[in-house]
């Protein structure tokens, strides 16, 4: 006969624990070049795949579609167009963000892919697909070679389109 499965509520136990995972990531050759350009010159670089006529931004070492190595680096942006936007109300730990954060997909002028980043300087109600924006870089002394070297994307000035 099987084990007596009758457990009572106070018999229930759980063991608390966590998985210690601490990481350090190097950028690879393409990441090195892309983020150096962001850090040192506030420039956004992509790589172009001639075979697929496709410009990846940020620039990559290889084309995922044809596997060619990508060596043709070109500058793109800093202005671009919103292709999707969301108002994110929850932080990573599930607590409410006040104010919420706007995240967007931005297709930079000259790029065939989008950049996933924060959107600022615009009311949520005005943040729509098609809005023209530009990258707002942090001051050079605050740039470290990170995606955060761009503070976020802002609507283009009134007269620029």
């Amino acid at each position: 006969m099987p084990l007596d499965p009758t457990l009572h509520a106070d018999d229930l136990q759980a063991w608390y624990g966590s998985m210690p995972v601490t990481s350090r990531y190097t950028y690879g050759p393409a990441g090195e070049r892309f983020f150096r350009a962001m850090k040192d010159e506030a420039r956004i670089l992509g790589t172009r795949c001639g075979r697929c006529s496709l410009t990846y931004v940020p620039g990559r070492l290889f084309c995922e579609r044809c596997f060619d190595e990508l060596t043709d680096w070109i500058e793109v942006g800093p202005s671009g167009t919103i292709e999707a936007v969301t108002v994110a109300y929850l932080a990573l730990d599930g607590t409410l963000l006040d104010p919420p954060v706007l995240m967007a997909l931005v297709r930079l002028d000259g790029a065939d892919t989008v950049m996933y980043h924060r959107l600022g300087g615009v009311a949520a109600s005005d943040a729509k697909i098609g809005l023209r924006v530009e990258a707002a870089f942090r001051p050079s002394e605050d740039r470290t070679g990170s995606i955060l070297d761009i503070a976020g994307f802002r609507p283009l000035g009134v007269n620029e389109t």
Partner: protein
Amino acid sequence: MMHPVAIIGVGWSGFRPVTPDVSYKELIYEAAVRAYADAGVDPRRDVDSFVTVSEDFHEGTSIFDEYVPDQIGGAQRPVHTITGDGLHGLAAAAMQILTGRFRVVVVEGHSKASNILTLPHITAYAMDPILNRPLRANPLAVAGLEACRYMHESGTTREQCAAVVVKNRRNALRNPAAAFGADLRTEDVLVSEAVASPLARLEISDHADGAIVLVLADAETAGRLSPRPAWIRGIGWANDSPSLESRSWARAVYAEQAAAMAYKMAGIGNPAEEIQFAEVDDTYAYKELQHLEALGLCSLGRAGPLTVEGATAPDGCLPINVSGGSLGVGHLLEASGLARVLEVVLQLRGQAGSRQLGDVYTGLAQSWRGVPTTSGAVAVLSNQLGGRES
């Protein structure tokens, strides 16, 4: 498929928001015992190979493969882990049988999501550590962005998304295994608090605990053991780009490609006509609509209106997620795809109780691995070997 493969046994335990009375091993063991009784096999004698699906960070253990064999009867047998959805595990099992060297293969998937205290942090760790993660956004923002783009290009409205929630959670009321049955109105969904616009809280499936085990067999064994085998007429799986930057956002290209592979194998030329009912991924309400269109079950932009008109209700012309889907049953992490397959098998056997659809002989199950992946799989099942000519 040169040599037909059938699902001859199904077993599950759960699905409930919490399962504090059982360890993951006991939860899986319960499902396995049911599956083996249903199939009429003894795992220690009759099963040639076992496939399990899991992800280390969902389990809280590195190399979780270590802890899978005992509770499915696989100790000292060929057992391997696929880090994918249960449908990827089903594909791995079917391929082994198709080699001709394995007659009976078992697939197992489970969720103990209630034991995970920091799931959003873990999901965020799947994002690119250099390009995306430093932005520290909640991964639901990726779903919000996809919903925004999909609704922009398809014309789908929030009301149509809300109709999916109402349908699936009402379907779940007739599924005794479902955790989140409810009788809601679209207004309830629309007014629920915004999470990542346009997604509101009730449009996001909650997680549940549970385990599912399926027993697959070759034609000869299925014929011998099973009164009503569920034949796998076609199976397919595909990935779009894993990067947020270069993937397709409006269309679920992974589902289009996985379906094309499965339909080709099943000899299905017109899915909208030949697929009678389907269980598709609805991790978020808009995904059911996006997936219906990607699967060719209706054209771009039509899934929303069809849902509001009741075409995808149990009594509609194309019943979708009669089980309740993830919204109604609960999201089962890597076992989600197996929950979709489970309902299709029960329907094809006529064992779906008060949810039973009428005369059904060909159904489809589709899964997606969730944010931030573009990984999906499709299986086409039938209770007739050749699939009745429509």
